[in-house]
């Protein structure tokens, strides 16, 4: 089974193919468009990640000891990056998610989207994904 860091490397390799920023962003936009829509019931405010500009909804559940994430955003670039986060983190055991370093975002040149000024909730998104994992690790340990 592929580890989180293997998946991160996979994404980094993919992004190395792009010559310029526009190809890269076109790809992210495509990823955003192809992210399966989530159930409307998960688009409630309680699933909203705090962030000023683009809204991001995140939901998680446990399946066979692994965390499965579902998410959506009203901005396509944000949604594309969310799709990358899900691809990397979804389907792993809580402990692995909690300890994932997520440096690939920086390596593929999208660090700017994690900065405070962007206020797009992505940083909080990663934090929230890890919090879900942490919560699941506590419940499954009982």
């Amino acid at each position: 089974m592929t580890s989180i860091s293997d998946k991160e490397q996979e994404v980094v390799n993919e992004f190395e193919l792009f010559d310029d920023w526009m190809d890269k962003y076109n790809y992210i936009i495509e990823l955003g468009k192809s992210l399966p829509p989530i159930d409307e019931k998960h688009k409630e405010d309680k699933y909203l990640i705090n962030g000023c500009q683009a809204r991001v909804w995140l939901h998680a559940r446990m399946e066979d000891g692994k965390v499965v994430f579902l998410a959506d955003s009203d901005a396509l670039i944000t949604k594309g990056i969310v799709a990358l986060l899900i691809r990397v983190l979804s389907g792993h055991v809580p402990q692995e998610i909690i300890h994932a370093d997520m440096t690939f975002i920086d390596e593929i040149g999208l660090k700017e989207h994690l900065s405070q000024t962007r206020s797009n909730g992505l940083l909080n998104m990663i934090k929230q994904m890890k919090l879900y994992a942490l919560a699941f690790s506590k419940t499954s340990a009982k």
Partner: protein
Amino acid sequence: MTIQADSIRKAFPILSRTVNKRPLVYFDNAATTQKPQVVMDRLMHYYSYENSNIHRGAHFLSQQATEAYESARATIRAFIHARHNHEVIFTRGTTEAINLVAYSYTKKFVKPGDEVLISAMEHHSNIVPWQIACQELNARLKVIPMNERGELDMEAYAKLLTGKTRIVALTHVSNALGTVNPLKEIIRQAHNMDIPVLIDGAQAIPHMAVDVQDLDCDFYCFSGHKMYGPMGVGVLYGKEEWLNQMPPYQGGGEMIREVTFSGTTYNELPFKFEAGTPNVADVLGMESAVKFISHLGHEHIAAHENALLEYALSQMEQLDQIRFIGTASQRTSVISFLFKDIHPYDTGTILDKLGVAVRTGHHCAQPIMDFFEIPGTVRVSLAIYNTKKEVDILIEALKKVREMFG
């Protein structure tokens, strides 16, 4: 003299830099304007040759710095045509100026059950200080509604002015919509009922001549950094009859006459409201910015910016599916819009990649976004150094956005 943006640009070093390997196109002037070299030189000169604490020392440098600081006050008095120098209070910016009045004025004049009147198009900084004061004093915050074009509903306004209204606090120019409010009429109606009016002038002062006596407003607030001056400095203009009656906002040095442990008597205006060591360097920098603006002339600035606004609007209208948010008949320098069904964040991100700096989001005016039922807008805001060529770059960039999100 007409404004030659190309030659003015040379006065702003930052405008010759690149962003994302492209020449910077700076259209985020409503957030903060860039600074001309003369302003930066003034700051350097102060710290290099004049730095000293003011109003205290008997030594040469202190006297010189005090004179420079008070002379800046006089320059700004003349700039807004206030009656007296001591009606110009230096603050950290518009936000602090509003907070000062929201605290000191209400403390003295607002009683439980009284009302404070603001409008539906205020920046958060002209909402929250009043909310805090109203909560504190059990007063009520009332809101003048606006129409779909982003203009105040003047009929509603007339009805909202009541015997309970203690102050009207209103923006001169909306930062999110560009609407210029009919201040003289608004102030006249309030004054008919002896209600004072505070004006948030942050978005107006870089674009148009402001004459506080002609407006007859009771308070006028603005920031240095939105008018080509430094950050961290601003002005509260207040009529002396109000300022004299209001209690101090902060305690400290400078604002006192005599201090004993049993009590303190306060200094006279303007010092009563300037506790602690003031931001001398930035006040002097703001004075340079005022001189810079005065030298260009407000009528020329307005002519250039209005022509550019019209050009930008006419070019943008030709793009398919552009929705302007804020279409008031009286407006200035701000174009808020949504492009197709593309999220403002997506538009802003791609514009940034193309070297075009705009603001996206709710512009610290969430109630406006709620009113229009939108998540935010893309905002293009103009200044004296912007050019038609830059508008053309924006249009090309928007076409690229359309291509990408198509």
